[in-house]
């Protein structure tokens, strides 16, 4: 099943003009995200996704590209998480809408599911939590997170939003048809561009189906100084959490500053979870041949 799904995924992307690429798994930089820990190896780090290397290719004029590769995230071991997992990541030129339409076609093709519903983060959050994720005061969100079982107090606004969304919204997503959650709050933008029509939201989306978060994608941020600013924000959060800082990848930032990242949209899909969805598995273990991280 895994082999058939991956073959279909590859065929789907290839038929749409994507070129398959390979980029290094081992590199000198750890992931800059506040909640990702890279695995150290051979004096460097294993990538947590091929994002930065693929964006360097895009800046060099590659055009649409995809990659299906192992990625590694230290400490992520559980029913739906493995330290070593398979990621499919692809980028197409142009704004997000084309990517979302294609994602919907892909899910239908691979999983035989009905067309996805698109919901904004805000409408889902409002309905399930009863607070506006874009305008509610930090204190209100903090109190809500605490009342729904957040251990201690959430560190900041993103932490409160993430907790409430995962606790109250996610369990109800993608049960009848896949749900594509769009327009994440700006504090959760990661490397997505801020929406043109609303500075409070970012052009980030996630795909949910069968109780699984399957994919996460962006209308990609292009602006080099804004990249530096966001990396600095992540590093401050890492410092608050007692984690080592992650040096930004200067080659990536140079590529953005020199050639520039073309307007493009990209998404990462969890291949192991895709296989789970296809076979109706409830644990990653059921679809991974040899689990070597002690997970269950």
């Amino acid at each position: 099943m895994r082999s058939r799904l991956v073959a279909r995924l590859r065929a789907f992307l290839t038929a749409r003009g994507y070129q398959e690429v390979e980029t290094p798994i081992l590199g000198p930089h750890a992931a800059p995200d506040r909640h990702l820990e890279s695995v150290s190896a051979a004096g460097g780090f294993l990538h947590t996704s091929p994002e930065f290397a693929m964006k360097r290719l895009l800046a060099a004029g590659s055009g649409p590209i995809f990659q299906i590769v192992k990625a590694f995230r230290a400490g992520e071991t559980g029913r739906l998480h493995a330290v070593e997992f398979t990621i499919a990541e692809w980028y197409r030129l142009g704004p997000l809408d084309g990517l979302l339409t294609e994602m919907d076609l892909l899910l239908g093709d691979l999983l035989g599911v009905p067309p996805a519903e698109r919901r904004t983060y805000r409408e889902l959050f409002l309905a399930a939590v009863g607070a506006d994720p874009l305008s509610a005061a930090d204190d209100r969100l903090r109190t809500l997170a605490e009342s729904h079982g957040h251990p201690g107090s959430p560190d900041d606004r993103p932490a409160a939003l993430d907790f409430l969304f995962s606790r109250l919204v996610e369990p109800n997503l993608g049960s009848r048809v896949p749900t594509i959650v769009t327009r994440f709050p700006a504090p959760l933008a990661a490397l997505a561009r801020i929406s043109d029509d609303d500075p409070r939201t970012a052009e980030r989306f996630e795909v949910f189906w069968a109780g699984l978060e399957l994919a996460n994608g962006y209308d990609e941020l292009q602006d080099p100084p804004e990249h530096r600013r966001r990396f600095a924000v992540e590093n401050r959060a890492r410092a608050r959490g007692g984690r080592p800082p992650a040096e930004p990848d200067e080659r990536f930032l140079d590529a953005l500053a020199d050639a520039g990242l073309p307007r493009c949209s990209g998404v990462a899909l969890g291949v192991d979870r895709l296989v789970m969805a296809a076979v109706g598995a409830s644990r990653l273990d059921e679809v991974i041949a040899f689990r070597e991280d002690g997970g269950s």
Partner: protein
Amino acid sequence: MARRDPRRGQGADGLRAAVGTIPATHTPEGSDFLANTYATNEFRSGLKVLLDSDPCVLLDCEFVKPGKGQAFTRIRYRNLKTGRVLDKTFKSGEKVEAADVLDTEMEFLYSDGGEWHFMDPNSYEQYAAGRASLGGHEKWLLQGMTCGVTLYNDAILLIHPPHFVDLKVVETEPGIRGDTATGGSKNATLETGAVVRVPLFIEVDETLRLDTRTGEYVSRVKN
């Protein structure tokens, strides 16, 4: 008596501690062996920990990490003192103190009315249990019976009688001959003082098998 290592009997770490060897590899990331704590990445069902200052057993653990958000570990656990099952969420990397809880077996010796006395068949050490630890199961206890015992800080926390016990009837109304098929029942007093509902054909001095979980008659046992 030497204080028990609370990790004893709880997987590989406990085994190493119990036999007194130094682990060949370092302890799992985040663990603090000397302080007897468990980090969330060591959580497993069956682990005994202190939560809300009570000894608890983990029933279910799940690693949760939304999107690019913070990682949490959600657990379902039973408070061993109250029996209540509760849910709790931890930030990944948080630590909880291990509870010095040990599940073992002991032989019931006698009751003096206020306390029930048990003996560890290996060390011959005696332990006394109060009524709260019996949870109503005192009525099944017969001298010499082997019971499951949960020790907490080397004192009896809970007594678990065998699921099935064989006890003799000391008092019941006379049996009704021939009525072995219909569903009638009557009370019978057993040698431990327990009173149970039994079929009408049961006689004094017969030995019965009882299910201690339901408190119900199961069958006659041939003497």
